[in-house]
C-alpha cells in the first residue's frame, strides 16, 4: 500500500466514522430543513407583528372562531394519526401503517379545503392582497402570505404522505421514511400553533 493510499484510508476512516450525531442522515437532513423552515416562518410572523404593531387601524375581520377551531382540531388529530401510523410501521404492520398514513393525508386535504373555503369567504367580502374594507391594506398581504405559506406546506405534506405511504406499502420505503415524513408533518402542525393566535385570534372582532 502506497503512502497516498494509507493517507486516504486514514482520512476515510475519520470521515465515515458515522453520520452526524450518530443519527440517520435522512433524519438529520429533515431536522436541518425544519430548523431552516422555522426561521422562514419566524421571519414572516415577525414581519407581520412589526407591521401590526405599527398600524393604528389594523383590521379585526374575524367574527367566528368555528372554522379555525375546526381546522386546529383536524391538524392536531392528524399529528396523532401520523404517530399511530409510525408505530404500526415500527411494529411491521404494513397495512396499518399505510392506512393511518392515508388517514393523515385525508385530514390534511380536509384542512386545506377548509382553508380555501375561508379564503374565498374573505375574498368575497372584498379582501385582496393590497386592500380590504376594514382598515390597513397590509392586512391582506400578511394574512394571505403567512396562511398561504402554511397551506403550501400542508399541500406538499399531503402529496409526500401519499407518495411515501404508497412506496412504503410496495416495499420501496421503510419505517424510517415514515418517521422522517412524520417529523415534517408535526412541524406543519407546530407552525399552526403560532399562526392561529397571532393571525386569527388577535384579530377577532369583539
Amino acid at each position: 500500500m502506497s503512502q497516498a493510499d494509507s493517507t486516504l484510508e486514514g482520512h476515510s476512516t475519520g470521515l465515515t466514522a458515522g453520520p452526524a450525531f450518530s443519527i440517520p442522515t435522512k433524519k438529520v437532513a429533515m431536522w436541518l430543513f425544519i430548523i431552516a423552515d422555522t426561521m422562514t416562518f419566524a421571519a414572516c410572523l415577525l414581519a407581520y407583528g412589526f407591521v401590526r404593531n405599527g398600524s393604528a387601524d389594523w383590521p379585526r375581520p374575524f367574527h367566528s372562531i368555528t372554522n379555525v377551531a375546526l381546522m386546529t382540531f383536524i391538524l392536531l388529530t392528524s399529528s396523532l394519526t401520523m404517530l399511530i401510523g409510525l408505530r404500526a410501521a415500527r411494529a411491521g404492520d404494513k397495512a396499518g401503517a399505510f392506512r393511518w398514513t392515508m388517514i393523515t393525508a385525508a385530514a390534511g386535504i380536509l384542512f386545506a379545503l377548509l382553508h380555501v373555503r375561508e379564503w374565498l369567504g374573505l375574498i368575497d367580502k372584498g379582501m385582496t392582497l393590497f386592500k380590504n374594507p376594514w382598515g390597513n391594506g397590509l392586512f391582506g398581504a400578511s394574512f394571505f402570505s403567512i396562511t398561504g405559506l402554511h397551506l403550501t406546506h400542508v399541500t406538499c405534506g399531503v402529496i409526500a404522505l401519499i407518495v411515501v405511504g404508497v412506496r412504503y406499502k410496495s416495499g420501496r420505503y421503510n419505517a424510517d421514511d415514515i418517521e422522517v415524513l412524520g417529523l415534517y408533518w408535526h412541524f406543519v402542525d407546530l407552525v399552526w400553533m403560532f399562526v392561529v393566535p397571532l393571525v386569527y385570534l388577535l384579530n377577532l372582532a369583539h
Partner: protein
Amino acid sequence: MTTAEASKRGGIGKELMVYLCLLALAGLQFVIAYQNIDASQMFIRMLAVAIVEAGLAVMFFMHLWTEKRRFVLFVLIFTIFVLLTMQYGWTDSTRMVVGAPFSK
C-alpha cells in the same frame, strides 16, 4: 434509547396524553381570545401557551426527547439563539404610531 426503540415500547398512551394536552392548550388560546384584556397582554399569554404547545410537540410528537443529548442541544441552542436574535427590531415597530422610540 433511539426513537425506534421508544416507539416499540409501550402503547400509544403517552402520545394520547400529549395530544389531549395540546387540544386543551389550543382551547385555552381560544378562551384567552375572548378575555377582556388589552392586546399586548393577550399577545403575551397566547405566545406563552403556543411556546408550551410547541415544546410538547417537539419533545414528544417529534421524539426529540429520545434523541442523543448532543443533538438535542444542537437543535435547541441553535434555534432559540437565532429566534432571539430576530427580536431586535420590536421597539422600532412603534415608531409609525408613537414616534421614534426614546425620542422624548
